[in-house]
């Protein structure tokens, strides 16, 4: 499969995530759009790792080139799991204080 197709798919998912972050005001949905952008990047990393592996395989049949990309995806998932737990705790705390998850209530620092 040509690598451009994967790039276009990842770009589409990433842009949908950006539009969600810019247009929605529910903090949980904004957070879910951030997760969507992380997943678009993960998909692109795996596709690039397979592309790199395919190029290196022609020269050396026993190569493991491109395995770094898949391990990066693994570490991104690890960090995302930790990030989600802390982020949801912050959203719960915000709901407890202002009884809403609307991010427009978070402009109190302005004054």
């Amino acid at each position: 499969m040509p690598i451009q197709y994967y790039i276009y798919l990842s770009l589409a998912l990433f842009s949908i995530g950006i539009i969600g972050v810019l247009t929605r005001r529910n903090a949980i949905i904004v957070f879910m759009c951030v997760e969507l952008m992380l997943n678009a990047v993960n998909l692109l990393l795996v596709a690039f790792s397979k592309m790199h592996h395919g190029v290196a395989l022609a020269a050396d049949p026993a190569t493991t080139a491109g395995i770094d990309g898949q391990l990066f995806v693994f570490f991104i998932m690890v960090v995302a799991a930790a990030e989600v737990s802390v982020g949801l705790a912050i959203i719960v705390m915000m709901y407890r204080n202002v009884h809403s998850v609307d991010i427009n209530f978070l402009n109190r620092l302005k004054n």
Partner: protein
Amino acid sequence: MSITEILFFFLSALAVFSAIMVLVSRNPVHSVLWLIAVFFAISGHYILLNAQFLAIVNLIVYAGAIMVLFLFVIMLMNINKQTERNKHIWMKLAGAVSGGCFLMVLVSLVRQANDFQEKTALMGTGDIGLIKNLGKALFSDFVVPFEISSVLFLSAMVGAVVIGKKE
């Protein structure tokens, strides 16, 4: 058209459609369910790319753990009805236009790039995604980041408890 291409386009259409539905759903619970559909489609892409370990980890970690956390938080807050006030249509339009401009710039960049011409991603073959090879690389070359991530998890756990605790 081979079976791989049919599966690729089906999974791509499913992923993009579900991602759009995440945005336009008024009910946050529906958004979570559509996001789970996106994660399943992306796991299907990983299987097509023969990255089996990542496909399973994506399902277990994202669809299994993170989305359940989201659902629990939404249900605890009882915000499964539409609470979002109607926003100015201009703000939504501005967000959509800026996201579309970003997409347009990057697509035109990729179309002109010489590095991506005639390059293909290996489908179905290549064994770097198997758990044996990934485990060997993870516990030899990447063992220090792996151990550091356990410290990160511990601090995230303590941080979540401290932040979420009642005063």
